[in-house]
């Protein structure tokens, strides 16, 4: 994870330069970020709340990416799950004991996310179709279908803003005692650890890893590749759907039309910085959450558009690619070659 420090530092430096160019004080800005995101109780709470869906969704991405499956359509899975949870939340909460409703709704979220991976997973497993394209297409469908659902069958008649009915505050996920942080963060961490356990200690995790490193070797070894592709995709979508359920049930209680936090895009950078290791996502997501929450407030205070934050994330990705490329060039130049030497000597 120390290797992520350099691109992050470079992005911070570039951000500071940009702020100066825009006539703002980078030190004050930085201080505002830390205050609003970390050093105040309210700020820290907000940061941790923001972490819950990110950790779950990041874990979902890593499960697929580690198996060599590029589940790029995560945002579509997220929104489909969110729409269903937001739409079915109020009626279920009304008709079931609230803890049962939570369990069922989380299940619905998982199923929705998993279901949205079926098409790209099947096409990849049976026909070898590029899952980047198919999952992106499904995402486009999902994002818009979610809106159709919210503006259609799930539309609330109680407000003029197009959104679902609201799950009352008392019926949302409970807080951790003494704080205003909902238990979603606990769910996220527990699930993350379980996934880590699966990846490092189980036969299934090893099979996915082999599949991700070398698909030909997986076939040669007789691993059930088609089955594993389907299950890995489903698990990935399920975790992303769970992230949506946790976010809706913990923070909002409803889903507004055209709402798209687009966590997927920012998570790609974080997930690769973490080198596809779920444990390493924790400090990186924490860092991002601090900057996100603190930066949002800081931007308001300094009258900068909050898009500035996305700019920073983009810079991190850019610098990450640059430092990786420089590192591999330095390693190769030790052999006097532009490419690493191939296997056998002669």
């Amino acid at each position: 994870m120390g290797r992520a420090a350099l691109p992050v530092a470079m992005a911070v430096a570039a951000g500071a330069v940009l702020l100066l160019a825009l006539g703002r004080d980078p030190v004050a800005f930085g201080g505002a970020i830390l205050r609003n995101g970390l050093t105040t109780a309210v700020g820290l709470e907000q940061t941790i709340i923001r972490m819950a869906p990110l950790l779950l969704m990041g874990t979902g991405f890593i499960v697929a990416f580690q198996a060599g499956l590029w589940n790029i359509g995560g945002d579509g899975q997220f929104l489909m799950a969110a729409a269903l949870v937001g739409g079915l939340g109020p009626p279920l909460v009304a008709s079931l004991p609230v803890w049962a409703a939570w369990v069922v709704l989380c299940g619905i979220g998982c199923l929705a996310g998993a279901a949205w991976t079926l098409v790209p997973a099947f096409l990849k497993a049976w026909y070898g179709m590029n899952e980047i394209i198919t999952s992106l297409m499904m995402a486009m469908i999902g994002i818009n279908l979610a809106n159709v659902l919210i503006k259609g069958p799930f539309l609330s008649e109680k407000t003029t803003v197009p959104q679902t009915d609201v799950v009352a505050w008392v019926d949302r996920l409970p807080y951790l005692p003494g704080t205003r942080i909902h238990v979603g963060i606990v769910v996220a961490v527990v699930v993350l650890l379980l996934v880590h356990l699966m990846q490092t200690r189980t036969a299934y995790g090893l099979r996915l890893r082999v599949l991700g490193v070398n698909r030909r070797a997986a076939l040669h070894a007789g691993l059930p590749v088609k089955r594993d592709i389907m299950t890995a995709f489903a698990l990935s979508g399920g975790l992303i759907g769970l992230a949506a359920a946790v976010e809706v049930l913990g923070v909002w209680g409803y889903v507004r039309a055209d709402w798209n936090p687009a966590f997927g895009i920012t998570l790609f950078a974080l997930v690769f910085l973490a080198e596809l290791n779920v444990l390493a996502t924790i400090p990186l997501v924490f860092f991002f959450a601090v900057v996100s929450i603190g930066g949002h407030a800081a931007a308001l205070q300094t009258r900068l558009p909050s898009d500035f934050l996305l700019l920073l994330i983009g810079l991190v990705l850019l610098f990450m690619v640059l430092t990786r490329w420089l590192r591999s060039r330095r390693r190769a130049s030790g052999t006097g070659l532009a490419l690493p030497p191939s296997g056998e000597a002669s």
Partner: protein
Amino acid sequence: MLLVELQGVTKTFRDVVAVDAVDLNLRGGEVHCLLGENGAGKSTLMNVLAGVYVPDRGSVLLGGRPVRLTCPRDAIDLGIGMVRQHSNLVPTFTVLENLMLGAEGGIRLRTSTAERMFADLSARLGVQIDHDVEAGRLALGQQQQVEIIKALWREPKVLILDEPTSMLSPQGIRDLERVLVELKRQGLAIVFITHKLHEAIDVADRVSVMRRGRVVDTIGPERLRSATRQEIQTEIVALMFPQDAASVAQLPELSEALSPSGQAPPPTGPSLLEIDRVVVPGERGEVGIWRPLSLTVHAGEVVGVAGVDGSGQGPLAEAIAGQRPITAGDVRLSGRSLVHLDVRARQRLGLRYVTDDREGEGLVGPLPISLNLLLKRIGTAPCWRYGFVRQDHVEANARQLLSTFGIDVDIRASAETLSGGTMQKTLLARELSFNPSVVVFNKPTHGLDVKTTVAVRAHIRELVQNGAAALVVSTDLEELLQLCDRIAVLAGGSLAGVVANRPGAGREVGMLMVGGARSA
């Protein structure tokens, strides 16, 4: 006429000295053989001349003038062409596109000129390849033929051939020798890298023996012409293997080409593997088995599968292993049909497959040896319980296998750090353990050093002595003649014949390989 001088060339990779202060002279109109074991530094030295590696010390002179070669382009522009062991063709381009790649010619690709050049060079080399085929669909041997044409495309003054005969049939080798004679007449300086001594003696005007990065000695044309073949052979063996000369003299690479093993046929047991009128589809343009093929392998028997690379051996091996479906016929193991069983199920019944693609298919690079040894048993007891791994069992299993097969590596070392020989031994350790009954080997000693080659062949013999059966696919005819009791010959996707291993078998196999029908 001195075309190239290498003076004091040294090349080090991290802490390994691959080439150690080597002086070498190349003369026009001469075939200069670089002879040595795998790992001696022959390819590395030539890669310096070809501009791939920049030497740490030393200089390269062309026609007496020192030159700086910083990239392969520099070498090509100066008239140095190289044909490597492994193909560098772009798999999605056609043969013609690969040949035109990088050649001068302005913006418009002059296809007609290229087609004519290709036809001319193909005729001279005896190559029969359609120039419109995608390079990725060609068999390895055919790719090599295209590589030779590609090297000659720019009309080089120096031509370097790195182990060029590894993929060729005996006829193809003779054709290559004819081409070399023609190129010598045109004044080219030819470097012929090989580890096969008899080949060196056959084609070379001058032989430089390399060992551990140094040129041990160079035998000039006068000595090659004056001494007998036997004398030269002894001299070279002593240069290549100062310690093990006696034991190594038995190896087919060193003795006369294509002589039979001379062993009495061993008693054979019941049939273990029956391939019954099998038809295997080739994928993406490769040659499969189009004519129903039948072959039986008995207990205690080693059956070879010979043929020019790309005659259908790979698909056949994969079909037996279960990695590829067959479209007709049956494969039976001890009488039991395997057709509906997947790879894992066949493994459990005792069928094993040692693949030729060690790094690409057989092993998973980033994983440690301990897990690679269990790749085909993931999830099974005792190393896994309820789906969870039991690290102590994994390590115990690894330690036991490594010691049984004489592999001296840390069990946590990742597979990609292993040498070629160690990788092969790891594959053997994996496939030959847990009571194999039939093992299919695909090019088992390809690219290995002498010591490992001897060990691998010993394992194969030991395997069948214990009652199992072996099917050895190889393009190395000498190896098959030394190991096998019978040799099946594939040509162009069908079985051309099966030859018993007796005097004259080599010639018969060679004829069948290029399509001569077998006389009854």
